[in-house]
């Protein structure tokens, strides 16, 4: 079998930028395939965070002393960098959150509970992450709205679902951009067009897309877009909520307190400008500076290249595993044209947890469980799957090691 192992850049050089990739696990070389959960961090990001603490640490916004001005400048500039990275107009459109979940909650409670009315419907897909599903369940309960789900087959939204489910009563649509279970992309362009024809606002959950592929929120025409910084080489504690200005103006803050106010009286208060009115309290400043460095790193590599590299590695893994009768794969086949770096599978009779444990014994880090998609797993008829998820630093050789380690699982559970 000849499988292409091409990459648009030199992966070995990239790997040297990530210190943790050099470590061993119980004597085995680490093969980190849990990137959909969180990515590893390059030295430049680690250095940016350290340098911030060593040289500039101060609280942001109102300090007049030099350190505070430096910290504010770095923190605010990070918003500009994210805006450019995802194709937003400017920093007014970029709210920093702690994670993707906080972004969804800000939209669900700040926008959803105010604009979804009794009898309206909210449209999601069957493969939403719990972080997108559960907040909208709460909105539906509070506002007596109906939840509708675009049905999927092997991670692909079925034909006709968009037209059938999104109608004149649809107030909000919240869809995952790339599935964390299947690696498939949702047809967001069609969904957004249809939703806008009916006056609905659309939130796109880009936790798995923006870290791995070029994203342009303006071209996509999403009203809201959320993603995670720690899945794209940035520190934990970084998440992003993008909103069109008019959509953000329709949104109430979800948290109240310092940093987000304009004028405060004993009985009432007014809010400061976008995006700061959504960032109550001291934000994750050093982490934001780290995120800025992460984006610089990704832009140097080029997101087209990152996507192409991951597709090559993923296709290689799928082609090797598709030949194995004892491995059940979930999601579309290797030749499916657009698929991100996620491979969900089960090995013979082994429970996914046991598979992950045995793979870990060989130094291979995967994740197993329901991947925060319990209803989807029930539909698939499996209690859990094991998931290998790739990133810009994974190699074809690591895939070989991974496929080889699956043999151990088969031996134990033969």
């Amino acid at each position, binding site marked *: 079998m000849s499988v292409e192992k091409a990459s648009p850049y030199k992966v070995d050089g990239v790997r040297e930028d990530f210190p943790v990739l050099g470590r061993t696990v119980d004597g085995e070389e680490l093969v980190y395939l849990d990137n959909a959960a969180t990515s590893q961090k390059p030295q430049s990001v680690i250095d940016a965070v350290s340098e911030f603490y060593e040289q500039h640490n101060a609280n942001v916004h109102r300090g007049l002393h030099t350190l505070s001005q430096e910290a504010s400048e770095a923190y605010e500039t990070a918003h500009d960098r994210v805006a450019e990275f995802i194709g937003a107009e400017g920093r007014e459109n970029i709210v920093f959150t702690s994670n993707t979940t906080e972004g969804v909650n800000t939209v669900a409670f700040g926008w959803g509970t105010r604009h979804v009315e009794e009898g309206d419907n909210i449209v999601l897909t069957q493969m939403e992450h719990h972080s997108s599903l559960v907040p909208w369940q709460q909105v539906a309960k509070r506002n007596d709205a109906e939840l509708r789900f675009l049905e999927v087959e092997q991670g692909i939204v079925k034909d006709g679902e968009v037209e059938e489910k999104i109608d004149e009563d649809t107030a909000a649509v919240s869809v995952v951009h790339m599935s964390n279970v299947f690696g498939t992309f949702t047809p967001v362009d069609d969904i957004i067009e249809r939703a806008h024809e009916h006056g609905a606002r659309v939130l796109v959950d880009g936790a798995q897309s923006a870290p791995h592929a070029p994203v342009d929120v303006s071209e996509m025409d999403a009203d809201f877009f959320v993603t995670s910084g720690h899945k794209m080489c940035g520190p934990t504690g970084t998440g992003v909520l993008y909103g069109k200005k008019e959509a953000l103006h329709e949104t109430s803050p979800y948290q109240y307190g310092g940093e987000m106010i304009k004028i405060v009286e004993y009985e009432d208060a007014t809010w400061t400008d976008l995006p700061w009115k959504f960032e109550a309290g001291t934000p994750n400043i050093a982490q934001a500076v780290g995120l800025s460095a992460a984006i610089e790193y990704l832009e140097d590599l080029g997101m087209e290249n990152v996507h192409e590299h991951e597709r090559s590695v993923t296709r290689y893994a799928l082609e090797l595993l598709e030949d194995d009768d004892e491995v059940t794969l979930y999601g579309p086949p290797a030749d499916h044209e657009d698929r991100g770096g996620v491979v969900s599978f089960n090995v013979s009779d082994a429970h996914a947890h*046991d598979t992950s444990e045995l793979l870990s014994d060989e130094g291979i880090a995967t994740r*197993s469980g329901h991947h925060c998609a319990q209803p989807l797993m029930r539909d698939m008829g499996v209690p859990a799957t094991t998931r290998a998820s790739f990133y810009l630093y994974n190699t074809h050789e690591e895939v070989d090691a991974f496929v080889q380690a699956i043999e151990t699982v088969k031996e134990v559970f033969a």
Partner: protein
Amino acid sequence: MGRDMYRQRILDHYRDPQNYGEMDDADVTYEDVNPSCGDEIRMYAVVDEDDEIVDVNFDGQGCAISQASASLLTEEVKGMTVEEVRDLETEDIKEMLGIELSPVRVKCAVLGLKVLEGGIVEYKKEKQT
């Protein structure tokens, strides 16, 4: 750890669990899940007038450790009183399994016991009313 965990005895109990299946006439029926990996266990027990467990079954699904541990537990607790079962601890389960467990897998291993103890609490409450 890892491969050492999957000793033959564990795998035997996983593939061919003892005292497996639903029980209609149980005095104790209880279930719980381990949300991190989706292990599910239901425990059924028949208790006599002296609070002794005279019969016990389980069913459910999940990883080898959770299912094998539940299977071994059913063999262990038959003939014990409900109070004796409530005194069982994580250490007893580890000893019963005879393998090293990482903290994550301890949750799998003790799920069966947690369910049985939960069921006993319910049973006691009901008995008092």
